[in-house]
């Protein structure tokens, strides 16, 4: 069971990608953005399940956009990150940073410098 106040790694990625895309964040664009930036395959099912869950938790908001001829006349659904979504992203980021700060120099050999 996914807790209401927590987000998983994939969900975090999805929300950040929506942030990158801004106004143009609809399903397919998000999928392509993740795939190209992170070099991983995202299935339609996984992405939309994630989007659905996030919207249910109140971290995302969606609205129906214009229909285009290219899509068989079907409208796009655009997503944006809500205030509480942004808050949780910030929290996740800060939590990570706290942890990073706690790691002593030289522990991780691949990271000689403190980030």
């Amino acid at each position: 069971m996914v807790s209401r106040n927590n987000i998983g790694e994939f969900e975090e990625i999805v929300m950040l990608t929506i942030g990158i895309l801004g106004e143009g964040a609809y399903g397919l664009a998000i999928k392509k953005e993740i795939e190209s930036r992170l070099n991983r395959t995202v299935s339609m099912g996984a992405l939309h399940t994630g989007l659905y869950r996030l919207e249910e938790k109140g971290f995302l908001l969606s609205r129906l956009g214009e229909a285009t001829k290219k899509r068989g006349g079907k409208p796009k659904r655009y997503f944006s990150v809500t205030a509480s979504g942004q808050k949780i992203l910030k929290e996740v980021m800060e939590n990570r940073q706290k942890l990073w700060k706690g790691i002593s120099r030289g522990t991780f050999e691949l990271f000689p410098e403190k980030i």
Partner: protein
Amino acid sequence: MSYPPGFLQRIMRWCCPQDRVDLVGDFLELYDERRISEGIVTANFRFFIDSVSLLPLKAISKNRYKQSKKRNFMFGNYFKIAERNLIRDKAHSLINITGLSVGLACAFIILLHVRFELSFDTFHEKADQIHRVQHVYSVIGAPIGPKMVEEYPEIIDVTRIHPWNKQLRTEITADEIYYADYFVADNNFFETFTFEFVHGDPDDALNGPESLVVTESIARKYFGDENPIGKIVQIENLNRPGKYPFQVSGVIKDVPVNSHLQFDHVVSFELLMNNPNVPIIDSWINDWIITYLVLQPGADPGPVEKDYKRFYENYSGSTFTDPSFRLMPMTKVRNHSTYLRADVIDQGNINHIRLFSVVAVLVLLIACINYMNMATARSAKRTKEVGLRKVMGAVVPQLITQFLIESVVFTFLALILALGLVYLTLPVLEQITGISFSFNILQEFGSTIVLILAITLSTGILAGSYPAFYLSSFSPTRTLKGETKTGKSATAIRKGLIIAQLAVSATLIVSSFVVLDQMRFVKNKNLGFQPEQVMLLAYGRNPTVNSKWDLIKGELQNIPGILAVASTSSVPGDNAPYWGYKFVGYSEEEHGEGWPGYYVGPNFLEMLGMEMIMGRPFSEDFETDQNAFILNESAWKEAINTYGDDWKEPIGRIIEYHTTERGELSMIKRGEVIGVVGDFHHRSLQNEIESLIIHQSPRNSVIMVKVDSKQIQSVLTILEEKWEDLGSGRPFKAEFLDDQFAQYYESESRFSTLIYIFCGLAILIASLGLFGLVSFTAQQRIKEIGIRKVLGASVLKIFLLITSDFFKLIIISLLISFPVAWYVSSLWLENFAYRINISWVSFILAASITALLSLVTISYKAMKASLANPVNSLRTE
């Protein structure tokens, strides 16, 4: 842009949550791109894989994106458009609403009646436990009930009732005298049945032979506003000769109309016990007491019914030959007892209730079809609206909602009219038909309202369903281009609807004719006797009257206008009870076999104009005729069959009459057969003529006088004056035999009146529907008609063109309706032992009426269309 193959699209759409059109868009867009970059095979494959990956989403999805919020703000608009449509075409709206409201009014009236009938006896707290013991009669021997309580553990209690419907003289003070009927009931009467007490205690109100319980209105009538408890009332001849005091020990509220037990005075059954005037109190074979058993809650009466033969033969010592023994549940007594030979209560008929319900549904259905036809007929006027709405983004469910709302608005307007109609017609209908409708409207107000609203709403939805789907399916491009032509399937459905409607009407018409025929047959059938001008004066088996009968008869015969006088015990129409008749030398049983006995006075047969086949009727000149017997034709034939050809010559053969008059079953009299009388209908035509053995009774109860039809009034006046002197102790009440005989058909004639009314209404509504359809056709083909006219077609040809289609429909609907009507009518006719053969005339008449009415309805529009100037229809192209 390219699309995936259809089946893949279907899989994808199926995998998608229904509310996600945007997802469909994403899929198509992605497919298009992949098709270009990766080729058709990979694109198809990945399209499929992606589709399947949607299934988890479909599983958790809760249709959150459904456009419900969007639709809400259109509701106001739907009502507004409905209102505008209503006002724009007033004639159409009027026809539509009239049809619906008449249909609804019919349904409500029948609903009220059916609910009333089904509410009978449900008010008793123990309604589920109480069962009435019945076999061929509703009454049974007095000791049977108590013995059954001893015998069977599942029977807790028994209450016996003897209705003493003899109009007994009841004296409040020396000057204040009433005549009343009495229930003689076991002391636990008010524990078994739930009747609300105003004064007194239900548990011991009937204790003691002097106690008397009356209803509130009787208490007010007898004692005014004084406290009635403890008041003394003198009752004459209640199960013993003479006048005895009774003390009011309880007052109940008036008995509800929906109780099959109707009474206003109850006295204790103790009066009958150890009473020398009631020798048959311990007899098992005399059927005279209504017996109610209280079963354990939830107990099944089945085993008791099956065991009854053993039980009866064990205790009574006589053989049990009556397979119809039943414990009838209290709430079914009224409507499920029509199989009885005779009943002490007013019966209802469950088959009538069922038929009425079917008729209600049918009439409502016709009204719905009517609306559908009218709405689709006018669809041409709505196509542009639908097209525009679709262009502006309305989706099909929205449009369906809109049209459903419109039909519901129409139905609710019709509801107002229907309620008005019901309110105005109910009193009239109650008067015409004698059926109670309105009693429980107030008592069960809430549930009635809910039912009425539910019926109205479902009618609205049903009526609106087809138009809604039909209208919302219009393609916006076509409608906006101005095309109004409709598909073949729509036309077929509409034709189907009109066929259904006409078939229902034709069925009702045929049935009405059959009912009419049978009722006429019943009225005109030769009964085998002449009931006209015969007046009946009941004096209640009064011994004083019987002892000085010769004197009374002489006196009555001297009254000018009286043609003949007779006394009798059996009156045509009454049930003839079975008793033992021993055909001496032929019958082997000690007390003879059971035959229906008929007890009459000496000149009964002549007065009613019955024909003797052989021998002679009873004569006062022969003393021995007191013990003589006359057979009716059926009995004579049965005697020949049973006892052999000797009985072809019955005159002079000896018969013994055995009954329980003296308590034990024993021979009462023995005498010769002196004649055979032609069969006559001793009961109404619902019943077969039975094999009667007719003889004289010293204990007659009715005076019959044949009156000159011109002097009826004066005879009545004189009789009323003389009545008191006869000393019968009963109020004067004269009835005519033919009237009384007609009363046996009351329930059937009530039924027939209602069927005529509903038939008329069905025809009315169906005509409205036809009218709607023909206007539609005329409108559809307006250009075709214009062109034909331009090319030289005559008005007549065009008229035939429009109407010929309808004649096909009429013929099909008649073909459907005839077998149905034949079947339904024969079901009803089975109520009568003597019935008509369903005549083809009814069918021909029904067919002509249907055709004629349809023709008249469609002619108006057809004429208008064929006479129209083609310029008007063609110039707009």
